[in-house]
């Protein structure tokens, strides 16, 4: 009885011989499944990054260090230590830039390896190579902006003075203008990542 | 007989040659921990037992008896007469019955 049962089981098991094995692809060169959202190696878009430090703050493993730029406004850019990173994707969620995130890991590579020794592994970074020309142009733009701003500030001061005078004169309080809330780096959780 | 002995000797020679080929090509780097016993990756937690307590002696004895039976059958290979073969099958029946009885008894002894 037991024997017959076992023989039955054997026949059933050998049905598997008919099934084509799913391992048909040489996975050294090709991924079996690589969805659009796959969280792999990061890319940092230094042009859109506003240097808000949100990604650094949220990273649960401190994989991100901010590289300092000789700029005033966007003075930092994230760099990721891939040996440390756990590819949780929180930094991408936290990044506030729109419509494209400045730090993106969706759709990245899976086959990131690095060398053996601890020092070699330490050199395993996503570096942002910023061409000097870009920095120069940004510096120029910043200069221009600063000049513009100064001008604007002067103008505003003048206007404000004028307004104050006008207000005094009018003796009736106009409602003060709503101040723009400065960005405090809070990630916006209500936004999903479009897949 | 002689052929077999020559065969055995040359097989032994061949295997020894293979073994020494392997040993000659293998690296050799002993050290204290490497030569320690494997204990699931930890230092040994007690001595290797020098004895084993094994409750299967009954089976060992049954093994001997059944082996003897087999040897008897080897001798029956050469019987030509009908009476001899009938005797042999009777013999087989008796021993089979004895073994069944003995296992029954053993099972009974185990369960109580």
């Amino acid at each position, binding site marked *: 009885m037991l024997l017959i049962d076992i023989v039955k089981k054997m026949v059933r098991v050998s049905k598997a011989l008919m099934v084509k094995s799913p391992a048909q692809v040489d996975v050294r060169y090709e991924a079996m499944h690589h969805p659009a959202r796959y969280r792999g190696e990061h890319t940092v878009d230094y042009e859109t990054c506003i240097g808000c430090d949100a990604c650094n703050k949220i990273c649960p493993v401190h994989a991100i260090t901010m590289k300092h730029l000789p700029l005033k406004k966007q003075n930092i850019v994230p760099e990721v230590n891939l040996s440390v990173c756990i590819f949780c994707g929180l930094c991408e969620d936290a990044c506030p830039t729109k419509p494209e995130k400045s730090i993106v890991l969706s759709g990245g590579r899976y086959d990131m390896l690095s060398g053996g020794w601890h020092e070699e592994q330490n050199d395993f970074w996503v570096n942002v190579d910023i061409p000097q020309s870009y920095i120069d142009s940004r510096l120029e733009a910043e200069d221009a902006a600063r000049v513009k701003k100064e001008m604007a500030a002067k103008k505003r001061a003048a206007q404000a003075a004028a307004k104050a005078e006008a207000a005094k004169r009018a003796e009736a309080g106009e409602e003060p203008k709503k101040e723009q809330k400065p960005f405090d780096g809070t990630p916006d959780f209500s936004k999903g990542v479009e897949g | 007989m002689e052929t077999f002995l020559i065969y055995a000797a040359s097989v032994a020679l061949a295997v020894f040659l293979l073994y020494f080929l392997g040993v000659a090509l293998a690296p050799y780097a002993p050290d204290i921990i490497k030569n320690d016993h494997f204990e699931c990756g930890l230092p040994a937690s007690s001595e290797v037992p020098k004895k084993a307590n094994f409750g299967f*002696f*009954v089976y*060992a*004895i049954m093994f*001997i*008896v059944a082996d*003897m039976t087999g040897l008897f059958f080897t*001798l029956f290979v050469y019987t030509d007469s009908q009476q001899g073969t009938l005797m042999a099958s009777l013999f087989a029946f008796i021993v089979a019955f004895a073994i069944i009885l003995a296992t029954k008894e053993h099972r009974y002894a185990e369960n109580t």
Partner: protein
Amino acid sequence: MFNIEMFFAFGLFSLGLYGVSSGRDFLRIFFSLEMLLNAVIMMLAITAHHLGMTQNIVLAYLVIVLATLEAAAGLLIFAAANKVSGVIIPDELNGEVEK
């Protein structure tokens, strides 16, 4: 008709005798018992070959069977004694049983 091979059979026999009588542990007593029986088998085989006493071979088979069964029964007694009293050397058994 003395044959030089018989000499060795006697040697084996007396070795077995020594082993049995020197009173050591069970295992070596078994060894020596087997040796005794094998000396007998040897004699039978030698006489069968050299003296043409072919029936002796049949006797030799019987002795082998005897030897096996004896070993089996002896080992059972040994195991039982060991289980009951933890004895390895037969000399100790006397004392154990009296206890």
